[in-house]
């Protein structure tokens, strides 16, 4: 029932209000005495090296694609896992999911072998 989602709605409202307060209050009331150090991008206390908007390695892209693919795999396996215990014969239910996973495992082995998982 959509009514079950009221807590989520409440949560979302609280999140928006809280973050709005956190952003607006300092902007309205905080003293502003900028120095070059204060204006530097925050890098966990270290001095920033190079521009923040530099080009990212293509490796990130490959990782993101792999993430999506296995994400989708989980989406398919999730409903299967919910009913797995009730399937009869159970080995057939297992075999069906095993074929699904094995085909993707082969893909993972392929990525590994081709060096797609190595960070250069």
């Amino acid at each position, binding site marked *: 029932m*959509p009514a079950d989602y009221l807590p989520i709605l409440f949560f979302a409202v609280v999140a928006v209000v809280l973050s709005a307060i956190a952003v607006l209050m300092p902007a309205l009331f905080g003293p502003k005495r900028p120095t070059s150090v204060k204006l530097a991008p925050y890098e966990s206390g270290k001095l920033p090296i190079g521009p923040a908007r530099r*080009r990212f390695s293509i490796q990130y892209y490959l990782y993101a694609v*792999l993430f999506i693919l296995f994400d989708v795999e989980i989406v398919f396996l999730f409903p299967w896992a919910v009913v797995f215990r009730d*399937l009869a014969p159970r080995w057939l239910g297992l075999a069906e999911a095993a074929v699904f996973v094995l085909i993707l495992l082969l893909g993972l082995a392929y990525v590994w072998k081709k060096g797609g998982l190595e960070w250069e």
Partner: protein
Amino acid sequence: MTVSQVVFILLSIAALGGALGVVFARNLFRAALALVLSFVGVAGFYVLLEAEFLAMVQILVYVGAIAILIIFAIMLSRRMMSSETQPWNEQWVGAVVVAAALFAALVFILSRVDWPATEAQVPADSISQLGQALVSPDFYVLPFEVASVLLLVALVGAVIIAREQ
């Protein structure tokens, strides 16, 4: 107006506003963020339609993964990241005409359609029913296995495209 109608309108504002943001944002990065808003709105529609699993998938895959991939892709190409792009070019008149014509045609047709509706209730345990359907040969076991082949093709393709030469 019922509560779900109010919620529907709010979600529509999110989904359509996000979509407009994607088209009109001058900065590609902001366009990608607007896309996330649109995705979330669509996830809300699924909840409203009592398709909870689909809503979860929408959040998990579209908001969680595809939006990230798009943002990565923008960050991979430096010029897109820093400079403003011009969403208009000399073909905008034609594009507007075509889009408006398609919109008018769809509205005209879809508003005259007598939409088939069913009285059936959405089952409470829709996920386990989905799970059954996925492995049952009477339903979707074949598309289920074929889907893994599709994922494999995408995997191999991604590695080939992303490989440094």
